[in-house]
């Protein structure tokens, strides 16, 4: 190029033919697209703000210590939601006990042992992604058919002489059904964690004469604990809000006493919300209770998600420091 721009002492570029070539051009499609992407974000923020705001404003008046610690009274038009909170906690604890070991083992097999071309690997992959896509009401029916009628009735026939013990909706069957539902969450989170562990550590362990099993137990798993924990919490926050899977497998409309054994039925927050909003004899009296219950459920789920996010970010920071 014959005329190159000359930089003036002021810092600007002096007038030359080059300047006209670089003149600002109005990028109309770009501007529209920018506007659309921004608006899409605003919609999301507005939706969440609306949901939370609405529930908080309408629910805050009825929230009290008594509300959280008392049982429902007078056909659910008064009293608290303690049995539902208790049932929810019990349910997700049992679910976690069932889902974490199985999910972690599946993830270890997929990431540490299997070759990506093996038939079992491909079949498991397919099963996990399909499992994640099954509608939750189908899990409810599956739980009823497989756990309650399949397992439960057969246990009764074999050990209780046909007496009805396990062959009916119960805490344990609801927990197992939820465990199947949340299995993909645990598997995928654990796999991500395993992927984040540098391969050099596995090689270092193997090079010292460790077997694959020793390497997994002493090097891989200790590193993966926080990730597995995150997976567990995400599963809990997913499971805590599900109603459909427990509808036929153990949740009850109202129980005078708290569940005390695996075969008890139980009250649960999500199901309680469903009951309050559809089965109440006095809609106006139930409304504030309904709002407050939804608020408690949301707060519980958000809190769990928050804990998972904090653990995960700390884990990432630790991995970054290593790198």
């Amino acid at each position, binding site marked *: 190029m014959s005329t190159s721009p000359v930089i003036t002492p002021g810092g600007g570029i002096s007038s030359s033919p080059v300047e006209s070539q670089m003149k600002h051009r109005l990028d109309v499609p770009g501007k529209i697209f920018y506007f659309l992407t921004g608006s899409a974000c605003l919609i999301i923020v507005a939706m969440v703000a609306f949901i939370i705001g609405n529930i908080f404003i309408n629910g805050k008046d009825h929230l009290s210590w008594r509300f959280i610690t008392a049982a429902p009274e007078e056909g659910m038009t008064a009293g608290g939601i303690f049995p539902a909170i208790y049932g929810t906690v019990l349910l997700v604890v049992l679910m976690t006990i069932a889902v974490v070991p199985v999910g972690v083992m599946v993830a270890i097999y997929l990431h540490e042992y299997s*070759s990506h071309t093996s038939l079992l690997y491909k079949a498991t992959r397919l099963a996990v992604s399909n499992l994640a896509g099954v509608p939750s009401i189908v899990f409810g029916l599956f739980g009823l058919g497989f756990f309650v009628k399949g397992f439960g009735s057969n246990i009764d026939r074999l050990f209780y002489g046909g007496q009805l013990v396990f062959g009916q909706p119960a805490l344990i069957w609801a927990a197992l059904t939820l465990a199947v539902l949340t299995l993909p969450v645990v598997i995928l989170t654990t796999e991500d964690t395993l992927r984040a562990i*540098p391969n*050099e*550590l*596995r*090689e*270092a*362990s*193997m*090079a*010292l*004469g*460790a*077997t694959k099993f*020793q390497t997994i137990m*002493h*090097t891989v798993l200790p*590193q993966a604990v926080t990730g597995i924990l995150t997976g567990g919490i995400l599963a809990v926050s997913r499971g805590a809000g599900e109603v459909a899977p427990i509808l036929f497998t153990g949740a009850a409309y109202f129980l005078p006493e708290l569940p005390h054994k695996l075969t008890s039925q139980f009250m649960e927050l999500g199901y309680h919300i469903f009951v309050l909003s559809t089965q109440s004899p006095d809609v106006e009296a139930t409304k504030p209770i309904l709002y407050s219950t939804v608020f408690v459920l949301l707060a519980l789920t958000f809190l769990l998600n928050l804990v998972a996010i904090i653990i995960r970010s700390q884990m990432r920071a630790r991995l970054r*420091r*290593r790198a």
Partner: protein
Amino acid sequence: MNTGATYSKLAIQVRPGTKTEGKKAMEVPSKVVAENVDFYYGQTRALRGISLAVKEKHITALIGPSGCGKSTFLRSLNRMNDLVPGTRVEGKIYIDGQDIYAKSVDPILLRRKVGMIFQKSNPFPKSVYENVAYGVKINGYAKKKAELDEIVEKSLRDAAIWDEVRDRLDSSALGLSGGQQQRLCIARSLAVKPDTLLMDEPASALDPISTAKIEELILELKKRYTIIIVTHNMQQAARVSDYTAFFFMGELIEMDATSKMFTNPSRKETEDYITGRFG
């Protein structure tokens, strides 16, 4: 170090001649013998008919341009390549006369005998003590805590890092400098009581001072261990090794005493590479 050093026509300084040069070299027993080794990553042939012998308690350097197969060869000596799916070894590799790819050989036991130091220092995210104790515990070498303490201390001393870490055995190994981490990894390997050490560019990520310490340590370790080191650094190969093998495109072009390789190589390719004409 400089006194009596031979200056080669290739302008690379070679360590003064060791006892092994000349006729005596023939009397030193071979620790590792490769016979016609081919290596495949799937369909790709990474090594072609490699045959060489590595002398016991000597340092053998493997040099060559990136992708020439020297690391692949190194990793086939303790069967680390077994861990990479779709790889295959043909030909024979003997260590102490034992065919290491024979069906009866357990790669786990082989790796206890043949230690490995990696290019990127890779201490476990555990304490300094636990890093060294790891292999000892896994192999069940120490019955009592006192025994374990002793092995840990001895390994750290042998790796010339004891004085730097004796007061921080319980703090994380990740807090050590790069050079210290690499010496810790060497200590960790020594704790398993190997007799051969494979080093895959152990100093390539280190500064000159840390590199010098590692080289000094390697020369010290030679008294008790057979060492095979892959390096991209010609000066390093010249400084530390007794024998040098030049790999190119998956083939062993030439192997000889280091002093001969760097002063008067028999093959033109070797001379071109050493003088920096390619690679």
